[in-house]
């Protein structure tokens, strides 16, 4: 087993032992403040079996995951092309940048009340809020990526007489792709943050809804289950994106390896 994984497992194991010791074994942390492993386990059984907060665990997970993926896709499918356009054309940048300067200082979560007012407690409001928060990092990083393509590489493309469409697909996008992926990672993070916040404020299903109901029920075990579920899903989706990135940037990892 690689050394890194061994150390990682050892860390998790020690944290769990410490958790067990502080709550169950010595009772230093009272049960009302922080749940013991046993309470957390029974909350997990509770939500996956009988269900909690309007549905069982699979249903909450499915709903949260679905909304994150949809919001994320809407955000990057609009954000990346806009970033490409701004990177390509100074005119487009001049048009679009002022709008950004006005919208950017507004924290994405501040859109939640307006979104719920417009679109209600259903999917549409949440996708809209995720879109607002996940859109910006995609645009900015894609734009920066295009602007960072080295001038000789662009000149080589001009010299080779590239048709416009091929220039975009074979020079601009791959040239900007390391930065585009940085943007996607930040967008994904923003998607999760915003979704959980939006579900806390109002939702019929979802992990944020579980957290919210558990808080009102004074049910620490369930709160922890909700938090761990979000953590695992966030990690999993980031992992999937990381695999896509590693595949798309094979040429770049070769570059990094060559540089040592």
């Amino acid at each position, binding site marked *: 087993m690689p050394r890194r994984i061994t150390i990682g497992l050892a860390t998790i194991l020690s944290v769990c032992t410490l958790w067990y010791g502080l709550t169950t074994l010595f009772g230093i942390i009272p049960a009302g403040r922080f749940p013991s492993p046993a309470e957390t386990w029974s909350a997990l059984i509770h939500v996956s079996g009988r269900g909690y907060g309007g549905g069982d665990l699979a249903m909450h997970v499915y709903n949260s995951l679905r909304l994150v993926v949809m919001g994320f896709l809407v955000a990057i499918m609009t954000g990346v092309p806009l970033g490409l356009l701004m990177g390509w054309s100074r005119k487009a940048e001049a048009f679009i940048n002022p709008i950004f300067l006005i919208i950017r200082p507004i924290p994405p979560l501040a859109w939640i009340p307006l979104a719920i007012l417009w679109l209600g407690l259903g999917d549409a409001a949440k996708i809209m809020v995720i879109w607002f928060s996940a859109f910006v990092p995609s645009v900015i990083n894609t734009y920066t990526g295009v602007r960072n393509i080295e001038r*000789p590489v662009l*000149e*080589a493309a001009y*010299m*080779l007489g590239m048709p416009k469409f091929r220039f975009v697909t074979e020079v601009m996008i791959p040239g900007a792709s390391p930065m585009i992926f940085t943007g996607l990672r930040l967008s994904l993070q923003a998607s999760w943050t915003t979704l959980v916040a939006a579900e806390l404020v109002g939702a019929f299903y979802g992990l944020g809804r579980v957290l919210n109901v558990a808080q009102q029920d004074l049910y620490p075990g369930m709160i922890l289950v909700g938090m761990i579920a979000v953590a695992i899903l966030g990690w999993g989706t980031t992992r999937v994106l990381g695999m896509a990135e590693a595949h798309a940037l094979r*040429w770049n990892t070769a*570059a990094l390896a060559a540089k040592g």
Partner: protein
Amino acid sequence: MGVIEFKNVNKVFGPRATGFRALEDINLEIRDKEFMAIVGPSGCGKTTCLRMVAGFETATDGVVSVDGTPIKRPGPDRAVVFQQFALFPWKSVYDNIDLGLRNLNVSRADREARIDAILDLMNLKQYAKHFPHQLSGGMQQRVAIARAYVLDPDVLLMDEPFGALDAQTRVVMQEELVRLARKNPRSVLFITHAVEEAVYLADRVAIMTRAPGRIKEVLDIASIRNAENWDSYEKIEDVMDLESFVHLRTHIWRSLREEKAAQHA
């Protein structure tokens, strides 16, 4: 055909009256299939000359033309080899060379044949599937030369192509370029600050003054090379020992040193 002509060319960066005067009254003709090297002190505008032929810069006054047609934009009829290689790092060696041919809508079979031939000629066959970063600097520049040569351009523009290479690799590349240029002559504009390189490679050498750059002198190397039969020597050091070579080299050195002295005066 590939006759490159500079006619009364001035180049000012910035406003005409107050900007930086890079080139002044450049008049130069590079004949069809002639190898012309430009040497000059750094900052004299020699690279700007090349960039105007490539279509990356426009002249402030005067005309830069190829076969009588003024240059408007970059294009594959004027292939460029850059000092920093400028390969597409996300494309394999093969795809880097292929791209220009695809843009010219060459048929697949024809492309494959031409790429195979150039890979063979440049000793790159076994690296066809490699990415640029997996190759040494010398290998990368070989790919860049292959990418330019495969287009079969009328005009080949080389901007200090060996400037980023170590001394040994540089010598090998110079020998290979001589081989390539004699076998498959093109109109070449070759920018360098290395005097030996210019004398070894070129048919004629143009010496430029410090900024604002002017053409100070154009030396005919080809007639001496042919008279002394330089091409019969396989190794560059054998040519460099010849009295005729040393004489030319010293002449150019002196001329450049005058420019250096003038700069400090």
